């Protein structure tokens, strides 16, 4: 039997937990539920995460790092801000389609159970990789003259709120077409709203 490394085990727990948290909700899901889903004993589980809260934080970091890495690759390209917007939108919608649990977790668990994330996860600490890359994206765009200079959160809210809203509609099955179909128009809308006037 092939040995499974500790890291692989850990990511197994993460993906199982993501699914359970976003399906059943954070409070209802128990550690035995997660342990069972990954096929390990509850005792062994505690070798990886000492509490559910800690796991919850680790998940936010994991998602934020994942998003941050993707956006960083886009930021480091020579593309124009307009193209970068398309790429970020595409990346985000693809993720919502292929790994809906990630976005779900982010929107439903992280944003609605902030009390869990108090200590050690205040403010931007746990979402820093993601926010940092969005800051870089915006400031590069202003510096190159493509984007209008404004308050960061006004721009960030416009961008991510819009995407979050679409994913929510998609998740609620209200959207008539798959997310894929909206990439182009939404990218254009975002670009038009942010570009230099």
């Amino acid at each position, binding site marked *: 039997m092939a040995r499974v490394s500790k890291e692989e085990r850990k990511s197994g727990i993460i993906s199982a937990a993501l699914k359970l948290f976003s399906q059943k909700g954070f409070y209802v899901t128990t550690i035995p539920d997660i342990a069972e889903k990954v096929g390990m004993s509850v005792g062994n589980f505690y070798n990886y995460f000492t509490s559910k809260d800690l796991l919850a934080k680790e998940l936010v970091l994991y998602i934020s790092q994942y998003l941050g890495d993707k956006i*960083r690759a886009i930021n480091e390209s020579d593309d124009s801000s307009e193209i970068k917007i398309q790429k970020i939108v595409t990346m985000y919608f693809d993720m919502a389609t292929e790994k809906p649990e990630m976005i779900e977790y982010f929107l439903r668990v992280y944003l609605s159970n902030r009390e869990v994330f108090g200590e050690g996860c*205040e*403010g*931007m*600490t746990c979402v*820093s*990789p993601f*926010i*940092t*890359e969005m*800051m*870089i994206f*915006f*400031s590069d*765009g*202003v*510096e190159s003259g493509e*984007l209008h*200079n*404004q*308050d*960061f*959160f006004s*721009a960030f809210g416009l961008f991510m709120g819009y995407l979050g809203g679409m994913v929510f509609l998609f998740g609620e099955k209200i959207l008539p077409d798959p997310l894929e179909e909206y990439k182009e128009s939404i990218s254009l809308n975002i670009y038009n709203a942010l570009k230099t006037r």
Partner: protein
Amino acid sequence: MHSKQDKKLKLLWFQGVTCNGNTHSFLNLPNIEQLLENFEILYHPILPSIYSLEEILKLEENCDLFLFEGTYDPLMQHNGVELSKIVDYYTKHATHVISVGTCASFGGMFKATAPERNSGLIFNEEESFGPLLEQKQKVINLSGCPVHPEWLSYTLSMIVSDKEVEVDELHRPIELYSNLAHHGCTRNEYFEWKVDVDNFGEKEGCLFYKQGCRAPMTHASCNKILWNEVSSKTRVGTPCFGCTEPDFPRTDMFSTKTNMSIPQDTPLGVPKRSYLTLTGIAKTFHIKRLEGKLIDYKTTR
């Protein structure tokens, strides 16, 4: 007594386009008397000199040290003699040339007087340019608007004691300019924890985020070797304007240039990504001691 005097280095201080600020800054030097004993002053715009300006303009004497204050304008004339001739004549024999202040070093404030021709002695802002390019190894740039008297004193003393003054790529002594003006500011803790300040006139808070402080991007030892031996701009709540750098004077000097609320320039050598990561995290912690007033004065007088 006379034989000893003969060995003194001959110093000539000459001015291009200037406000006299470096001259007056130098007069603040506490040990000016002892320092000047090492030199024979052929000419200085204010201090007693052996020759008058008229005599100096005859271009007959030679000096060992040529100190130049002000922006170099080749067409400027002193009593009918072109500045280019004067600089050319005196620097040829001099062993050392010191650009005193940012104007002489990079063009500075009075580059704007005639931008098409004015410059420093060997630099036009950051670009290699000026009348002394061919003898640039002689030139030491003491940028600063004005120069700090101790910086000039250090340089002169090094020359007197026959020591090599090591310089950076902009010809500034590294012992004076390897520091950033930010080093030693009393607001450093606020910078570390990213505590900004909305208003001027407060002891608390760092001026990097809103008020335009350039100190983390500026090579100078203002907060290490204090001004007038007592203070510095940032210590009294004035942002650093980056006056030792080639791009001085910049514009909008009392506000921080931001792109989508993110500072356009990050501390020297710190990648924006690292800076933002740290900032995001530091801003998360609300530290009472740093957010409140240090002292709450109630008593009067």
